[in-house]
């Protein structure tokens, strides 16, 4: 069966520090991968999605970047965090080219920038 792992679960980082959130998927190959941010009162915002290794689509210009160094690994990064980067970050995957399929979510990372 497929599983998705996202870590860490919680993170408190000072302003200006770097960030690296990691997400890995097991039990499937060549998935679509997504990073979402859920900020209070702003719902679920798509940040990045990837259809393959090294292929990243950015939805929102911001202080963050994403990379997909391996087929089932998706990393969210920042060189210097801002207070506005605080939020709940969710990684998700879906089966490629099956648009009717659901997305499967990780447990999320609560990021607080102080």
């Amino acid at each position, binding site marked *: 069966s497929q599983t998705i792992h996202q870590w860490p679960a919680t993170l408190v980082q000072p302003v200006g520090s770097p960030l690296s959130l990691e997400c890995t998927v097991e039990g499937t190959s060549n998935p679509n991968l997504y990073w979402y941010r859920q900020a209070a009162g702003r*719902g679920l915002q798509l940040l990045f999605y990837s*259809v393959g290794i090294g292929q990243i689509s950015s939805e929102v210009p911001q202080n963050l970047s994403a990379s997909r160094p391996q087929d089932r690994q998706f990393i969210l990064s920042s060189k210097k965090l801002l207070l506005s980067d605080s939020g709940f970050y969710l990684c998700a995957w879906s089966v490629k080219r099956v648009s009717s399929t659901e997305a499967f979510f990780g*447990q999320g990372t609560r990021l607080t920038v102080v």
Partner: protein
Amino acid sequence: AQTVTQSQPEMSVQEAETVTLSCTYDTSENNYYLFWYKQPPSRQMILVIRQEAYKQQNATENRFSVNFQKAAKSFSLKISDSQLGDTAMYFCAMTQGGSEKLVFGKGMKLTVNP
């Protein structure tokens, strides 16, 4: 561009009653898929129900059903016999055929009161 709008930020309902959550969307495509996700306090995103745009019949899953109005681009979720465990954030989402992009609405907080 595809957009999903949930105009009601919050609703409450009494246990055992019926509640309807609204969602509208915009797309220029004829082939697309719609979803309702639930996010309970545990923050784990769970698929509630899905609808293929090419199907005229409204999807149902036990106490959950949708009212899909393609011409009006409306996709509402009806929860019958509401239970305390239905208390959660509910997100409407869509993906277009041929696109790997999955877009969510801002969500709506539903509270079921005893």
